[in-house]
């Protein structure tokens, strides 16, 4: 399998090299034959990279430990799902997966645009092929997942006698990654990263081919929308994985690699919004080019951060050998590619400045067009803050040699005001009139939302003022936190009321104009204008996310108690009775069973009412039995999560150290994510014509 994979990647590299040349010749000469050849190269690369993926998967499933990657990230007893997900569990495999996914997306993009945007394809294909070429160079010369396993004598183990080969066992996948959400999270994230390459290539293609007309951008917008959606869901799944697997009771730690995935999502959000303005009014042309370039480059930057070893993170793939010459270090290869793509984009922007001028002015500071601009400026500001937080420690370390990292204390005070301002703009932009922004345009739409936001604010303040001495003392000890919380509550209700009112008005208008009758009219906004109302669902999901983050961040309570079977302990509003501490055979041969578990049986009561039977566990994996992982147990309800973990245990006397968190409204995050998924998918549905 190793030989097939290696050769497949080598032929793919040759095809990418030829394809890039052919695409460029097609761009310069306008010769269809070269374009066809370039497009065929893309399809050939797709077939060959999928062949390489299949070869690696087969090697993983067959426990072919003669391949170093298989030996490093798999073992015989590993369940099939984790043998398959080992493809993206290590650096080399993940780059192969990136490359194969990119090739598939490139093939789809050229096929879907072969009639409508054929004139843009030469340079677009050139950019796509350059990107493929970059990954194929890495796979062939730097990060081959098919490298043979060598023994300490420098002899390939492949040459061993069969009985010696049979004795070789792999290390196995990192236990933290042996989780079903970790099997889904990276593919979702990669689809987002990879997908943004398509609109990036199309925008550069449009600039190179002097395309001023913006209607071709619908195709680019669909790719951007899909990538934005999968990246967002990927980030959220990563948060859920961290919540249930890492045992610290949280879902987001402002880890540099988490931030690196968040950055392109933010700029992608800005692109999706300013695109709407370019489509309707022909404005913000430069912003669109800027944001899509930033999004693609930030995707590559995120990949660079994870793979260069420059950062310490639970997500990073580890350090590189320091003896490697600088020009062959993976980080520097990534930097060279990013700079190359940036230079290509900048040159095209400078040479096609005329195409990026809209020739239209913003008529009013309160118009819809202006509000979209404010939103994008705020999203840009958020990007800069996070980018600074991620990047500055790298420079500080390079200059001073000191290890610095930024956590919540850096991000929260800077990001929260910007995020709340975005929430406000998100609401007002939904009701803002086109071209005009006078008070008269707003007045009739603001009454109900202002009442909703104001009432929510009054109720929350009253609840804290009359919530007892402890509540008042907490309020006095961190007034700024409460100020942010109250602002978030008021704005969330304000925005939610705007969205609900907008939907009701749309349904009523459909009925009044005889376009639909009840109850069919309830769905008519989504059928008639899926982008707008799908977008509103996404906004509603964001409101849920804001509330979930605000409440869980402000009111999380942590507890820890040592318990024996029969003990009953109070954790906030819950009483926990420990029924017992149980375990699998801890002396079992882990190479055969892959894992052994220890768990506490907990009966949870709220008052006298039994509410849940929880089993927090520690799991010893064959891959790393010294570091058992957490399997937390959560009693999840809409308003509260009761989160338990087995922090420590002694199987001899049956004692267990039980950690617990009461996390308010965490479920709102997952509910918000679901709404974003539904809304985003709706926005991808083609509009019904009437």
């Amino acid at each position: 399998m190793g030989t097939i994979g290696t050769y497949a990647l080598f032929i793919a590299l040759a095809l990418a090299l030829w394809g890039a040349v052919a695409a460029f010749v097609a761009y310069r000469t306008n010769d269809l034959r070269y374009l066809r050849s370039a497009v065929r190269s893309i399809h050939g690369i797709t077939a060959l990279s999928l062949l390489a993926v299949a070869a690696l998967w087969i090697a993983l499933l067959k426990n072919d430990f003669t391949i170093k990657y298989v030996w490093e990230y798999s073992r015989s007893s590993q369940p099939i799902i984790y043998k398959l997900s080992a493809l993206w569990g290590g650096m080399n495999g993940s780059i192969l997966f990136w490359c194969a996914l990119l090739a598939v997306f490139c093939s789809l993009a050229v096929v879907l645009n072969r009639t409508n945007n054929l004139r843009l394809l030469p340079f677009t294909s050139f950019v796509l092929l350059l990107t493929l070429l970059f990954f194929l160079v890495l796979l062939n010369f730097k990060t081959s997942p098919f490298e043979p396993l060598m023994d300490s004598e420098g002899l390939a183990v492949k040459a061993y006698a069969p009985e010696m080969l049979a004795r070789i066992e792999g290390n196995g996948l990192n236990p933290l990654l042996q989780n079903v959400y970790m099997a889904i999270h990276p593919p979702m994230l990669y689809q987002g990263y990879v997908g943004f390459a398509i609109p990036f290539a199309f925008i550069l293609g449009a600039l190179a081919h002097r395309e001023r007309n913006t209607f071709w951008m619908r195709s680019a917008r669909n790719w951007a929308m899909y990538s934005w959606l999968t990246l967002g869901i990927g980030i959220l799944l990563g948060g859920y994985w961290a919540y249930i697997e890492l045992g610290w009771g949280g879902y987001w730690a402002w880890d540099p690699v988490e931030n690196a995935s968040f950055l392109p999502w933010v700029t992608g959000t800005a692109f999706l919004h300013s695109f709407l303005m370019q489509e309707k009014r022909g404005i913000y042309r430069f912003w669109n080019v800027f944001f899509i370039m930033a999004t693609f480059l930030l995707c590559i930057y995120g990949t660079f951060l994870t793979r260069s070893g420059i950062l310490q993170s639970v997500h990073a793939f580890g350090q590189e050998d320091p003896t490697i010459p600088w020009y062959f270090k993976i980080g520097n290869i990534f930097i060279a590619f990013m700079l190359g793509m940036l230079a290509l984009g900048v040159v095209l922007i400078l040479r096609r400045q005329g195409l990026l001028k809209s020739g239209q002015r913003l008529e009013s500071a309160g118009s819809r067009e202006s509000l979209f601009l404010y939103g994008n400026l705020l999203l840009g500001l958020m990007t800069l803050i996070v980018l600074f937080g991620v990047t500055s420690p790298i420079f500080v370390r390079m200059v001073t040699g000191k290890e610095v990292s930024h956590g919540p204390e850096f991000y929260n005070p800077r990001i929260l005001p910007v995020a709340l301002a975005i929430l406000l703009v998100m609401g007002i932009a939904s009701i803002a009139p086109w071209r005009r922004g006078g008070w008269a345009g707003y007045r009739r739409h603001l009454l109900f939302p202002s009442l909703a936001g104001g009432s929510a604010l009054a109720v929350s303040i009253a609840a804290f003022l009359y919530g007892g001495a402890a509540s008042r003392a907490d309020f006095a000890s961190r007034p700024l936190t409460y100020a942010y919380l109250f602002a978030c509550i008021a704005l969330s209700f304000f925005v939610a009321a705007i969205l609900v009112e907008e939907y009701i008005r749309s349904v009523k208008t459909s009925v009044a104009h005889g376009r639909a009758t009840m109850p069919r009219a309830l769905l008519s906004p989504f059928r008639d204008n899926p982008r707008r109302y799908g977008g509103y669902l996404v906004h509603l999901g964001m409101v849920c996310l804001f509330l979930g983050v605000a409440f869980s961040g402000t009111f999380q309570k942590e507890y820890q108690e040592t318990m024996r079977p029969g003990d009953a302990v109070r954790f906030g509003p819950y009483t926990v009775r420990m029924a017992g501490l149980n375990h699998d055979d801890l002396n079992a041969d882990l190479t055969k069973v892959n894992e052994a578990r220890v768990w506490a049986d907990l009966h949870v009561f709220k008052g006298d009412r039994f509410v849940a039977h929880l089993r927090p566990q520690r799991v010893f994996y064959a891959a790393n039995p010294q570091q058992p992982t957490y399997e937390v147990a959560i009693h999840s309800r809409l308003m509260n999560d009761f989160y338990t973990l087995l922090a420590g245990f002694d199987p001899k006397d049956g004692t267990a150290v039980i950690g617990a968190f009461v996390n308010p409204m965490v479920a709102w995050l997952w509910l918000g994510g679901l709404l974003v998924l539904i809304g985003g998918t709706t926005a991808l549905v083609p509009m019904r014509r009437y």
Partner: protein
Amino acid sequence: MAPLLATLVLAVAAFVWVLRPLFEEAQAIPQERAAGLLADAVTRSVQELETDLRLQKIEPADLDMIQEHLKRESAS
């Protein structure tokens, strides 16, 4: 030996397929845009704005102005 031979065959086959278009008759890349696509894009954009007209988020005069712009843009 067999894998090497198989690779060689695969590489030759891939390149023959990729290079084949170069031996066809020369042809320029068509530059015209798909007229149906443009009309469809304009219609959909106008349709979205008409929703706003019904919801009183755009004045009729502004809708006309934007519609004119969309038509000009599609012809550019």
